[in-house]
């Protein structure tokens, strides 16, 4: 019979609704245990274990927002440790054995170190340009791409008349970001859409 992880499920619901404090709560709840466990089992120092765990929490968040983690089949701790193990394996190149449950989690979720989320020069440039994009673009893009809000919810949050206004504004923001990227890359080698 499948075990029910009510408390963990509630935390996940809070994160899905955009409550960022719940992400920090998850991080602080499991961090100490993970670091201790990682140092005990692998040849890594505390800063590396902490860094791996931070990546694991970010991955968990991303999976929740992207709808890859609807209902828990294990405890939140099991998910975090499986993702964390995979990150130690890949980022710190440690010989980590993943058991059957870990493998299932890693295969069903995105469980990569965050550095591999964006690898190429253009993606890195976009990330840097995001620092300068200003409002309301930063908020709209954050709500849509990072918090998984619908356009209707964004319109409500940002006080727009309706979701079409929010959509148009989002499109303007993306277009403006693309223009900034093109301006940085000389030669205009991108297709002008």
């Amino acid at each position: 019979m499948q075990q029910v992880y009510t408390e963990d499920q509630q935390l996940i619901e809070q994160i899905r609704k955009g409550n960022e404090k719940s992400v920090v709560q998850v991080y602080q709840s499991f961090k100490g245990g993970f670091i201790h466990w990682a140092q005990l089992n692998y040849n890594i120092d505390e800063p590396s274990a902490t860094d791996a765990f931070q990546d694991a929490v970010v991955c968990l968040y991303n999976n929740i927002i992207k709808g890859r983690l609807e209902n828990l089949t294990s405890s939140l701790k099991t998910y975090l440790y499986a993702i964390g193990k995979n990150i130690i394996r890949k980022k710190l190149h440690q010989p980590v054995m993943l058991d059957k449950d870990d493998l299932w989690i890693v295969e069903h979720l995105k469980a990569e170190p965050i550095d591999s989320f964006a690898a190429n020069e253009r993606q890195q440039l976009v990330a840097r340009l995001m620092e300068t994009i200003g409002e309301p673009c930063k908020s709209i893009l954050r709500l849509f791409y990072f918090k998984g809000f619908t356009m209707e919810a964004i319109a409500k949050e940002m006080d727009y008349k309706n979701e079409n206004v929010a959509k148009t504004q989002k499109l303007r923001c993306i277009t403006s970001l693309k223009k900034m990227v093109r301006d940085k890359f000389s030669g205009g080698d991108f297709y002008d859409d």
Partner: protein
Amino acid sequence: MKTQGETKRNQIDRYVNNEMQGEELAQFEQRMREHVELAESVHFHRDVLQGIEYYFIKELKKDLIQSDIPKPKRNLKTYLAIAASVVVLAGAGLGYYFLKQGEMNPSGLAATYFEPYPNIIAPVSRSAAASSTEEAMQLYETEQYAAAITQLNSLINQNPDHIGLVFYRGVSYLGSHQPEKAMADFENVIEKGEPSLREPAYWYLGLSQLATGQKVQAKASFLRVNEAEGVLAGQSQQILKAIQ
């Protein structure tokens, strides 16, 4: 009606977000193979979206790192600031009540909420040998704002980096019904000021904006008060609800 450009952008976006299926997907991929420009547009769009995602996940990681840094213990100044905000709140409940009853416009609301921020930079000794700052703050405490502004102007000219003086001049401007000048001072405090004055600066900036009828800008300022999660956040939320 959608233009050709909009349709193409929409298709690229749907493709990158895995929202295409079946025949439509096959046709789009065929077009990508035939038109290198389209393929490049798709790659470009994907890079932009992944770059955005990358930026925000790095921000989240920064938040986690930040949560590991122990918060400093409150100093005397902070306690005074909390006491000050309690004074500010005294008017807030009344303002909210009136606005809820539909009896007050935004500028009236600003006037009702306004309470001078307590003097936390130069406690007034009331001795004969009071310093210029004490004199200015004594005028401020007794709500002689015009005279306080004159004194504060002189002090700020001598010491333009004293952001506390700029803050109190802003409050004095607001208290003497000069919200435009008050806004300039609060914006200056926010830009250069020390963290302990940031929340009240946004609070008074919001009130100044309400006083000049700038509801949208006021809303943004009160949202910043909320973000600070300090003692003014609850009342700021009430104002936000009320002005919406």
